[in-house]
Structure formats: C-alpha cells, structure tokens
C-alpha cells in the first residue's frame, strides 16, 4: 500500500482541492487566449505559467476538458519517426512524458511497453530499416528485429498471418509507451490552474478579431474577450478557426476511429502495429484491447462511427491474433484528425500578428502533447519560434520545405 493513499483513511477524497475551477465570469482581457482545452491547450497554458511566468491566460474550451481527440486517442507514445526534425521533436516529448507524473503529482500511467511495427513486405522492411537507421543516428533506441525476436516477445502472435503476408521482421522501439490520456490533460489543467490560468469550459470561440493585421481578441458565445495573443490548439476543428482569419492551410479532416474489447486479464504487454494489415493494438491497464486503424478513406468533418471500420479491423486483427475472435467489441468511437500532406504538424507564428497555430496533429499528436505545449509556450512568450519547431512552420508549404513523415505516421500513430 503506497503511503500516499494512507491519508484517505481520515480524509475524504472530496476534501481534495479541485482540479479545475468552478464556472467563473470571463474577464474583459487576458494576455493570452488559448482556444481549445485539449492536451495541447492545457500543456501550453501550463508551460506559459510555469516557465514563462505568463499567468493572465484563459483557455477557452467549447465542450469539456480533453473532450476532443485527447480523450479519444489510443495513447501510443513513441519517437521512432523518419525525419531528423521529427525524431528530435518527439524524443523531447518522450523525455517530458517520463517525468510528467512527478511534475503533476498525478499518476498518468505512463507505461513503457515496447512497440513493434511489423513488416510483411520487402518494401515495408526497407522503410523500417530507414527509420531504424535515422533513429539510431539520433541516439533513439530503435532497431530492425527478425521474426524469432518478435516471436519470443509476442509468442501468441501468428507470424504467418494465416498463411498470407507472413511477418518478415519489425521495427522495435523499446521506449514505446501508452498513457492515460485524460490524466495528461487533467494534470496540465490542474497545474495551469494552480498557477493562475483560467480554464473556461463550455465556452466556444466564434470569431477572432483583428485590427490592422493584428489580433485584438476573440468573440465567444459568452461575449468578447480582449487578447493580443491568441493560440489555436483545436486539432480537428482547425479549419474552422483558420477560416476566421482567412488563413489557408493544407489541412484536411479525416475521421479516425478506434474501439475496445471487453476487459480481460492482462496477457498483452507490447504494442503491436501492422501497417499492411491496417491495425494496431495494445492492452490498457483496465484490460481492454485498445485497437485502431488508419484514417477513414474520405474527408469528413464528423465523429460518427462506421460499421466498416470495426468489420475491417476485427478481421485483420485475427490474422495476427486468431484467439481474439472469442473476445467482444464493447465500444467504438471516432475523432476528427487534422491531416497534413507531409504527416508532420504545423506549429508557430502565422502571417497574422499575435495569432499562433498548433495544428496538423492528425493521428499522431497525443505523444506530442508535452513538447508541443512547451515549445508553443516558448514561441508565444518570446514571439519567436522555438528551435525544435522551426521546421514545422506553416510557411513551409509555400516554401516547399516539407517534413516527410508519411512513412512513419500513417497507421502507427
């Protein structure tokens, strides 16, 4: 029994301080307004307050904290990306993740499981090798492993995949982890709030006002709020925000779905991803298998679930784990992922002075929550992009300086 729990013998959990404040009126003006109370918005607020002493900040969230993609994602955290820019960026995030529970004084269940990306074809092997080489170059724990090694770690996997497209090898990334998504958002929110940041749920930004090309504030369904600096951290809703300022981005919105089985006792310790089969799976600490696939085939601004998705996913999953046919799917859901052409994020300043963008998180942005918050906070505080996110500026599309992460991002999240 951990000592920390002993206090509850005489203290009730309801006597604990609130994570998030009660509803309060909006102030007339803030130094910084963050649109979107997902992980990214909360993390940015936290680091603004903690590292830059900027506390006159409001996070405006149309629904509830973490109710966007943060609360829908399958929480895979890894850094075995394909480009130098990506690898460095995500590696920093992993380092932050490792200490987050302590930082927050809240267990985010950061659970390092090891991450296999299976290759079933020559060309997939080639991509895995490429990633491994790039990763190793940057000191990331990442290697191509053979069938025997995989089989040893995941003995119950059918390496022949039912006779077709047998597994040829895999990219193995020991630091690959999962975490409790909500706790990440809550931890950041509580930390930000304790440092003076205001969090307003059920508050939707309906317009962004500018004067002479500079941001002056945001219109909300609770009235106008002045702010010279506004950050959009709304993932799947990005086009609706950028539209307000007539900023063009190449972001397209695709639904991304996931599902879980009924809980069973732990048997799967690693995270397994197969791009060819369009599936990935891990077992949550509650015992559910958490499973997902690639984005839906067509663009759509919707979080509806489809039958096709569970049909396809379960079918392919059984190629790897035939015995899962005896499990039951308990729940499925979808989020809207903001996909960029190069599968890398868009971060930093924009052409509108005082408007900062953090978007293009597609299927991969949960793992970036800490680093994105930290680097965006730096960028806003100093009005100059943090070194790590310079390659991810919106202007890279106009300048054709893309960061090609497709090979590492499409199904693997």
């Amino acid at each position, binding site marked *: 029994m951990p000592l920390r729990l002993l206090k509850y013998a005489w203290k009730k959990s309801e006597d604990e301080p609130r994570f998030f404040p*009660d509803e309060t009126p909006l102030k007339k003006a803030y130094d910084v307004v963050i649109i979107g109370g997902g992980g990214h918005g909360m993390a940015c607020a936290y680091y603004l307050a903690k590292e830059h002493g900027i506390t006159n900040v409001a996070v405006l969230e149309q629904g509830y904290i973490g109710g966007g993609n943060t609360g829908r994602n399958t929480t895979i955290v890894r850094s075995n990306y394909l480009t130098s820019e990506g690898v460095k960026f995500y590696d920093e995030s992993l380092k932050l993740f490792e200490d987050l529970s302590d930082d927050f004084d809240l*267990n985010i269940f950061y659970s390092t499981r090891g991450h296999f990306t299976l290759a079933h074809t*020559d060309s997939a092997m080639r991509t895995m090798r490429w990633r491994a080489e790039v990763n190793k170059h940057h000191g990331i724990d990442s290697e191509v492993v053979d069938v025997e090694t995989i089989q040893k770690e995941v003995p119950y996997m059918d390496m022949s995949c039912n006779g077709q497209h047998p597994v040829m090898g895999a990219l193995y990334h020991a630091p690959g982890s999962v975490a409790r998504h909500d706790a990440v958002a809550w931890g950041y929110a509580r930390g930000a709030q304790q440092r003076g940041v205001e969090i307003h749920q059920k508050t939707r930004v309906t317009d962004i006002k500018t004067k002479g090309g500079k941001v002056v504030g945001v219109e909300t369904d609770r009235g106008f709020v002045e702010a010279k600096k506004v950050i959009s951290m709304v993932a799947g809703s990005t086009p609706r925000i950028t539209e307000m300022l007539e900023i063009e981005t190449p972001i397209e919105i695709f639904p991304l779905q996931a599902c879980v089985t009924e809980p069973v006792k732990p048997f799967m310790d690693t995270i397994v991803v197969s791009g060819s089969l369009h599936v990935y799976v891990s077992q949550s600490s509650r015992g559910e298998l958490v499973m997902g696939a690639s984005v839906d085939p067509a663009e759509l601004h919707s979080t509806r679930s489809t*039958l096709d998705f569970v049909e396809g996913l379960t079918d392919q999953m059984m190629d790897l784990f035939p015995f899962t046919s005896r499990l039951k799917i308990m729940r499925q859901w979808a989020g809207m992922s903001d996909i960029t052409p190069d599968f890398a994020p868009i971060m930093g300043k924009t052409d509108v002075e005082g408007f900062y963008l953090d978007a293009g998180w597609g299927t991969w942005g949960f793992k970036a929550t800490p680093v994105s918050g930290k680097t965006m906070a730096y960028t806003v505080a100093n009005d100059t992009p943090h070194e790590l996110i310079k390659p991810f500026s919106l202007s890279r599309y106009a300048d054709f300086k893309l960061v090609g*992460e497709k090979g590492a991002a499409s199904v693997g999240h």
Partner: protein
Amino acid sequence: MKLRLAPQPLEWIDRKSSVSFTFEGQTVSGFKGDVISSALWAQGRKVVGRSFKYHRRRGLLSFANHDINALLQAEDRPNVRADVVQAEDGMSLTAVNTFGSLASDKGALVEWIGKFLPVGFYYRAFYSPKFLFPKWERLIREMAGLGKVNTDWSEERKPKRYLHCDVVVIGAGPSGMAAAIAAAKQGVDVCLIDENPYIGGSLDYQYVNEDSQQLNRKYLKETVESMPNIQVITSSYVAGYYGDHWLGINTPDGLIKLSAQAVVVASGVFEQPAVFRNNDLPGVMNASAAQRLMARYAVAPCKEAVILTANPEGYRAALDLHKNGLVVKAILDTGKTAGESVVQAKSAGIPVFENAVLVEATGRKQLQGVTFEVGRLQHHLSCDGLLMSVGWAPAGAPLYQAGAKFGYNYTLEQLLPVELPEGVFACGRINGVFEIEDRIKDGEQAGTAAAQTVLGKEALAPVDYTAKSAHSDPYPIWPHPKGKEFVDFDEDIQIKDLKGAIAQGFDNIELMKRFSTIGMGPSQGKHSNMNGIRILAKLTGKTIDQTGSTTARPMFHPTPVSHLAGMRFRPERLTPLHSFHQQRNACFMEAGSWLRPEYYPTAETREASIAEEVSAVRNSVGLIDVSTLGKLEVFGRDAGELMDRLYTMRMSNMNVGASRYALMVDETGVVIDDGVAVRYSEEHFYVTTTTSTSDSAYRLIQKKVIEWGLKVTVLNRTGQIGAMNLAGPNSRKILAQLTDLDLSNDAFPYLAMRRAQVCGVEATLIRVGFVGELGYEIHTDSQSALKIWASIMEVGSEYGIKPFGVEAQRLLRLEKGHIIVGQDTDGLTNPFEANMPWSVHLKKPYFLGKPSLMKLKTLQNRTLVGFELLSKAHKDMPLESNLLIENGAMIGRVTSIGRSATLNKVIGLAMVETAFSEENQVLKIKLTDGRFVDAKVIKTPFYDPQGLLQKPDESNEGEAA
C-alpha cells in the same frame, strides 16, 4: 430444486429434458431452455459473481443481457453473459475476476482497505519512485480485467448476411409488434428484430397474470407471424445504427447488415436500480428481473419479498409473486402510487408503506432484511428478496446514434426523444407510453408513419399517448453515512465516489464518467448512467437537461469479434500466366494482392538463378509476366485533355500509334505513379500504372474527372488484360515468327505502339525498354495471354529464352538507372529530385502538381544519383535504406543497390543532398553494423548509356545468341 416454481403459463423451459453443467466445480442441473443464471438461481445459488473492485458477493441484478454480476468464464471463451446464454450439457464455468474461488475470494481484502482507495485512487499514487511503477502497474492490471484469454484458442468466424427491407422495427414488445403489423398492412416489407428468443417483450413477463393483456399478446404475436411481409429475427440485437438506416445486427449465427428505408425504435426501457446501502447484496434485484425469472424460467426470485417501488409496475410485480404463492412482506412505495394494481395489491392483503425512505439492506453474504423509514419511524423487515421498481431509462442507443435529441420529461421523470431524424420513429415505453393499449396505438401510428415515408405519403400528425403520471422516482437515491450505496455495479462506484469526483471539479457528465469510470464497464452505463446523471444534477444544482448525458456509442451489447470480422476474405490475385509460373516452380512474392514470380529456381542458389535470368536478357532473350501492372483505358472527347492534366508530360500531342512515359505527381509535386501511355485513337488512350498504385491511381483519376467535369470515361482493365515483356537482343526474331506485323525499325520504331495479331490473337505491342534491351510489351485479353506466352517460350527455346522474375527485372532496370516509384522515391520526392527533369513539361498550361513543380524546380536540394561501391568485399555490401553520412550528418540514403554481373560491380541509387551529387563525389555509406564503406557517384545509366541496345539495327542484332 429449491426455487423452481410450478409450471408457468408462458415458460421457456422444457421440463422434460434436463441439462447439467459445472459452476465453480460444482454440478448444477436445470432444464433445457434455462439460461445459466436461471439454472443457478433455481438451485438456490444466489452468489453468481464477485464485484469488480471490492470483490463483494453479487447475485442477479437486472437479469438481462447487461447484468455483469453474472459474467462467467467458460473454457472456450471469457466473459460469458449468464443471463442470456443458455445452459448446455457439459459446460464448465467459473466466476470471472476472483482470486481463489467465488466462495473464498482473496480479492475481497480490497474492501478492507477500501477507505484508502477513493475515487481515482490510482491517479494519486504508485508513480513515485518511478522505478516501482511497472510493478504497481502489473498489480493493478492483474486486479483489473475480467475474464481470462487463452491464447491457444482457435480462430472462430461466422459468415455475414445482408438484408434489405422497407421498415425495420427494433424491439418486438407490444408497441414494436403493433408497429410491424401496421407497417406491413401498408404493404411494405418489414423486419422485426428482438434480442429475446421470442417476440412478445414485456407481455411475456410483466402481464402474465392479466387475461386481457394476454389476449393482446396472443393477437399481436399471431398477427405478426401470419403476415408474409414481416420477417422476424429473434435472439438478435441491433449492435449499432450507422447512419442512413444502416444497421449492424448481431445474431447467434453471425452479423446481419441491414439497410432499411425507415426505422421504428421500440426498444423500450431499462429498469434502473435504486441506490441505497448494500443495494448489491444477492437477493436485491430489479422487479422486472424477478418477473423474468418467474415467467420465463419458473424460478422464484426469493421466498419472502419486500418490494420497493415508485410505480404501478412494482405493485404488479408484487401481485405476480403473490400469485405464485411467495410471501410479499411489504410494498415500500417511495411516494403514493395510484391505479388498479395498487388497489389489487392492497386487497390481496399486502401491507403498503407510502412515502417510504430506504435506509439500508442488511445481511452478510446475502440479503436478510431491509430497514426503512416512514415519517420518523424506522422499520425493519426480514426478507430474502428486495425487488426494486423505481424507474426506467430509455434503451435509446439506436436513437442516439441516429441523431435523435432527448429531453427530460418532468411528468414522467424520464428522458424522452424530443427530436427525431428523418425516417426514424419511436414508440412505446422509450417514447414515454406505458399503458399496453396506448403502447399498441403508439406502435401502430409509428409503424404507419414509417411505411408512409417509404411510400412517399404524407404522414398524419401523431397522437400523444405519453403517460400522464410518473413511472420513475425523480431521485431513487438514499445516501447512507456508512456508504456502500452502489451506483455503478460494474465498477463498484458508490455515491461518495461521484461526490468526490464532482467536488474535485469533474462536474461535467463526461468528466465525471472519465474520472470515476461510471458507465465505462461492460454494461456501458445501462443501469448506472441515469442515476449518475441524477446525482450530478442534484449536487451541481442543475436540471437533468442542463446536465446532459454521455454518448451511447455502438456496440449496444459487446459483440463478438468473430461476428464482426466475418469470413476471412483476402483475395489473392493470380495473373493469367500463373499456371506457367507454377510449372516452373517459380518462387513467388506478394505484390499488393498479386502473386508474382520473384525468380525461377534454375540454379543452385537464389542469386545464381537470378544471375542466369539477367544474363539471358542481356545476351539473348527473356520473358517476364507484367500482368500485375495497373491498366486503364481512357475514352471520350476529353481523353487527351485528361491525359494532359494527369501526367507531367504532354500527352495530347502524341500520335496515334505512339507511346510515352507517363509520370504522375500529386498536388504537392511528389511522384506518385509511373507507367506507359499509348494512344489508340484520337479519343482513346491506354495507360499503365505501377502494380501497387493501380487502385489508388484509378481512384484519384475518377475523382479528378468529376472535379474537372471532363467528358471522358476511365475503365480499370487491370484484371482483364494480361501482359508480358519480351526483352533481349533476340526478341524481334522470336516475335517475327508469331506475327505478320512488320517489325522493322521503320515500320515499328522504338517507342511505337501497334495493334496486331500475335499467334492469331489480337494484341497491343509496345516497343519500350524498361530493362534496356530491344523489347516488346505485349498486352492481350487475359484468356489469350497464356497462348502467346507459351508460343514465345516454344519459339524462343531455340535462343535459350528464359522467363525472368521481379528480382532480375529490378537488377536490369537498376543497370539502366530507371527508378521504381515508392522505392527510389519517397513521400516527398519530386521529378527533379528523381533526376528526371526531362519528364516535366512545364509549358503545358496545367497539369496536376504543376504549380508546385514550378516552384520546386528552383528549390531542389536532394538529387537521386547513381553510385558504384568502391569495396568489393562481400561483407561490405550495404542494404537499401542505409544512410550516407558526411561529417557526422545524414546527407542521404541508399534507395536501390545490387551486384551487377553485367558490369562486374556493385551499383546503386542514392538520394543525396544536391551538394553531394556531383560525379566522382565519394559517399560514405553507414552499414547497419555501424561500419562505413565508400562509394562513388557515377552517371546513370550504368549500362548502355547511349541507349543503343534498345534500338538496334535489325541487320546486326542477336549476334550474341
């Protein structure tokens, strides 16, 4: 048998045959037709499971599919729902999630330390020191989870079916049956679906002793069964509503995918438990559960009952017990219910306490009594059954998923649909209609309206049959200073847990769910969500509508993976020449869904076999199956325009009878496909794509045709056409023997296309040279491909012809420096980087990606170069994807590499920073083991740089044979 009753009028069991199975090692017998739970209960086994967190003993609660107290482990599957799975001979079952056994579960120790484990306790500890977290996590994971998986279980798959109907009715209770009949009377096709094995709904268990209702039941059932245009699907539930009236229906035999034109939701309501101290003791159950036990399985819920109620349904349940000779000690009415059943219960001599307040249930391992208050007086009654009838919540998942809006009705104290999407109707209790006669009428009007939408008729304004008095208690929740009032039975969540969550700021319904885990268990909130909402509303001083509800997502009930997956269907595509490859024992590789010969094992080793194939092509002649290429035909007035817009080269100025390299880039200028285009006639092109892009290219082209509004038709003929490439200095001589076509350089020059008879079969011949020799691609209908292939092999034997596979071709093209899209290019490579500036015709007014390429032309910083390896040692052979390093920085990577016997060196292609792309630049390749080897940039093609061999003079060709 202890609790088995005398035969019931409608019982589902067959008393003539018995079944016997084991539960926790002990033999249990029941009747055929019994579900596992009813067989257990009939024998007096009231503890059927342990609770999730505290491992408290649990009995039957709702005796419906979603009751997870009765979740069992079978030998062949986890999490068996004992309330709905029929008992079968030989089953061997245990409770899930016990440590030791059900009777003696070490997990119960958790309850002793329960006060250290407040809501969300796992967020508050275990993370420090960091190195211990994995151990704690392991423990937490072991404690969580329900059933056990045996990874040796074999795969199960059930075929799926499709069904179409005009009106689908979900739920076959009185309103659902009435709706089906009414719709069918309009002449439309109806499907009636119910999760129970028989239609009838609550008429099968709540009104069994009421003659007039049994007449209704008989009429409805018989009418449904007699109507040919009603298809009844029982033992099946709608797992999800997926938009546009597309339903996934889980049946015992697999999934049905049903498409309807209108949907009537008559799925009724879930009975909600009351929340009070020890409301989870075995013996405390929903009144409807008790009624189902009695009516369907002839099992008494208890011997001496106390009824806790807020509605006439509770009084009816009391009468049912009474009728079965069971003692009803008292009815505790939380208010002052009126109605016929109240009068009857009172006249049957059952004591009624109005305005009763529940204090607690008592008992150690099972229910032994109940304490309640009336006014200020406290009473205690001993009993072994406490039946709760305090309210209902909509079984609204299909409606929520269809996009219906719900609002709280204060008369009924129930959530009702207030806004329905087009083509979706609701009736019966989900609609707030409670009297059977009204439910029938409500069903009739919903069924009629649904049919009328299908028939395109105007529907009448509906009559409102909503009940005029409450059937739910507005707050059936009685906190107790000592706690243990369970709100969520799946997750062991008590009032204090919700209070704690709310007090800490998780006061939004979704946040409360996520923090406390209420509604996250296998029953997905079916008997906890409503009480959770009530508690949250009360504690935050909001209305139910302001509080809102969590989202009811699919699945309605957890649905087997084997059903959702269906039969395994991985089409494997075989080329029309497959039989030949098989005869030659080709070693096959997967290429998308195709199987292609990688090489033909003719020599000792793979390498030697490939080398022989390469040598045949270089020195005499070889033949390769290229049927897997994507093949598209483009017809129509705008065919030339479309081709111009799709490909980087100009296509509209191509002569009929010519071919041209076809390179496609996407909007960002990235290479996505290449192939060869030929022009059959002014308005008719034929173009190939790579094997792996045939589907994506076709999809993209179709999209573009629509976007651009062009008058053109694109046909995907990939599977209809077989193709082969005859290549090598002797290819012309062989082909000449099989066709009358003039093959002379003048008549059929390099890069020309001709239609001709080959072996008496119509074929398209294209004189191209991917492998760098004189060669002909021959495309013909797939039935005839083998004939041509066989003839070529026969005629070619004189020249030592060899079939060659993908590996030889890869080496041959590498010698020519030709790229493979997707291997030598990556997700960002444009044609300039791929070193193919000649393939981009920027003078064209427009093509896909042109605006990007205009810019990229000046921005090039990577270039695909050829290199030769300076070391010859075998161990120094780099692998594709090895990096190029300069001064510790990555400057590129190897994209292709091969040992060329023809040139007697290792050659390759590499994508490098342009600064390092000059000829003779030395590149340092980092091998996988970390060593470096040197390579030197050299010009491509490596082989036959002038391309003379592709267009030889016919007089001196074939010397080498």
